C-alpha cells in the first residue's frame, strides 16, 4: 500500500479526476492548498500597501492505492496535470503501514477495493 500525494493546478483538477477514474482509481481525497515553487510571484496593492504574493493556489490530492495501481495513477496524473509551464506541481509516494475502511473495519487491501455493486 502506498500513499500518493499530488499537488496540481486547480484548473487541471477536472482533467486529473477524469484520468484517474479512467485508470480505475476510485478513491481519493482532495484539499485546497497554496504552494510556493518556481512560479513567478505577483504583486498586489491595497491602498498604500504593496504586497508580494509568494503563494499560488493549488489542489492537493491524496490517494491510497495498492501496489499495482501506483504506476498507473502516477502516469494518469502526470499526463493530465502537465501544462509544461513552471508550477505544474509534484507527486510524492509514501509508504503506508496499514489502512482501514471505517464503514466495515476491513483493513489493508480490502480497504481500498471497491465492493462490487
Amino acid at each position, binding site marked *: 500500500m502506498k500513499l500518493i500525494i499530488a499537488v496540481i*493546478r486547480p*484548473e487541471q483538477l*477536472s482533467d486529473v479526476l477524469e484520468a484517474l477514474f479512467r485508470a480505475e482509481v476510485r478513491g481519493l481525497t482532495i484539499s485546497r492548498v*497554496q504552494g*510556493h515553487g*518556481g*512560479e*513567478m*510571484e*505577483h*504583486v*498586489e*496593492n*491595497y491602498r498604500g*500597501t*504593496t*504586497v*508580494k*504574493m*509568494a*503563494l499560488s493556489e493549488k489542489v492537493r490530492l491524496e490517494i491510497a492505492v495498492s501496489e499495482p495501481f501506483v504506476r498507473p495513477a502516477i502516469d494518469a496524473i502526470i499526463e493530465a496535470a502537465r501544462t509544461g*509551464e*513552471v*508550477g505544474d506541481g509534484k507527486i510524492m509516494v509514501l509508504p503506508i503501514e496499514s489502512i482501514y475502511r471505517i464503514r466495515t473495519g476491513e483493513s489493508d487491501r480490502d480497504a481500498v477495493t471497491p465492493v462490487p455493486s
Partner: protein
Amino acid sequence: MNHADIAWVLVSTALVLLMTPALGFFYGGMVRSKNALNTLMMSFVSLGVVGVVWALGGYSLAFAGGHALVGDLSFVLLRGVGLEAQGTVPHLLFMAFQGTFAIITAALISGAVVERMRFSAYLAFITIWMLAVYAPVAHWVWGGGFLAADGALDFAGGTVVHVNAAAAAVVAARVVGPRKDYGRHAILPHNVPFTLLGAGLLWFGWFGFNAGSALAANELAVLAFVNTWLAPAAALVMWTLIDLVRGGRVTAIGGATAIVVGLVAITPAAGFVGPLSALAIGALAVGPCYAALILRARTTLDDSLDVAAAHGLGGATGAVLTGVFADAAWSGGTNGLLFGNPSQVMVQMYGVIIVLAYSAICTFVILRLIGLVVPLRAGGRQEGVGLDVTEHGEEAYTGGDGAILVSPDVAARAAAAVRVPLHEGGRL
C-alpha cells in the same frame, strides 16, 4: 414646481443609482471568486465613467432638440440645464434621473464579457457606446425622436435599456469570444447569496426606475409602482412552479433570475397596463426566458451571465405584451390588442427590432475599432489566474497567507516588474 413630485423623483433617482451596485452583486455572485472584483468593478466603474460622460455630453445627445435621430449639442457641459421647472420638477433633476438609467444600461452589458475582457478595453467601450448607441436610442424613444413619433410605447425603458443592452451583450460575447473553460469545465457561481442580495436590491431600486418614470408622485406613479410589485411576484411563482415540475428543486439562482425577468418584462408596460395584466405579463415572460437560459448554455455563445436570455428576451417580451395589454382605462393613453388596438403589437415589435439592429451593428463596429488599438481580452494565463489579480492587482477574499509586505522603495520597482507576464520562465 411641486415639492411632492420633487421629493419622489429625488428618491427615485437615488433608487435607480443603487441599482448599479445591486447589479454588481447580482452578477458578481455568479462568477468564480477569482473574478469577483472584476465583475463588481465593471458595474461600479460605470457609476463614474457613464455618469461623467452623461453630464458632459450624453444627456445633450439624448434629450436636446427635436430631431428624429439624435439630440443636438445645446446641453453639452450642462449648459442651460438648471433649476427651472421641466414638468413639475427641476430640469437638473430630470437630467440626473435619466443619467442613472444610462449608467445601469452600460453595466448590464458587462454580464456578457465578464471573466475575460480587459478592463481598459471595457472602459473605452462603455464610453463610446454611451455616446454612439445609448444616447441616440434614448432620443428616439424619450427625447422626441422617431420611435416616439411612431407611437411605440416604452414606459421606463424595456427597449431603450434592456433590449438595447442585450443586443450589445450578444455581439460583445461573440466578438470577445468565449471564456477558455466555457463548455469544457463547470463554471459555478461562487456566492449565490450575493446574487440574491443583488436581486433584492434591484427590485427595491426598480420601484424608482419604473414608478419614478412618471416623474411625479401621482396616480400614474402608483400604477407603475404596483405593477412593478406584482409582475416579479408572478414571475417568481411561475419560475418556482416550472422548477418544481421539472425536477422538484426550486433553485435560488432561478428565483433571483425570475425576479429580474419579471422586472424587465414590466418595465415597458408599467404605466400602461392594469395590475392584473401586470401579473399576466410577469408570468408570461418566464416561459421564453426559462427556455432561452437552458438552450443558450448548449450553444457556443458565452453570454456568460445571460444578458440576452434575461434582459433581451424579457425586454422584448415585455415590449410586445405592452402592445397586447395596454389599457387606456388605466393609463388614459393608448389601448393594446386586448382592448381593441391590434396594430400596437406591430408598432412595439418594430421598435424592438430597430433598436436591436442598431445596437448590435454599432456594438460590433465599436468593439472592432477598439480591438485595433488594444486587445479586447486578457491572455489565457491571465484568465487562468483570474482577472482580479491580473487586471486589478487584488483578490476579493484574502487570508493574507504568504503575503510579504514590500517596503515602499521596493514597491516602486515591483510595480514595474508586474507587467512581466505571470508564470513566464525563470526562477526566483
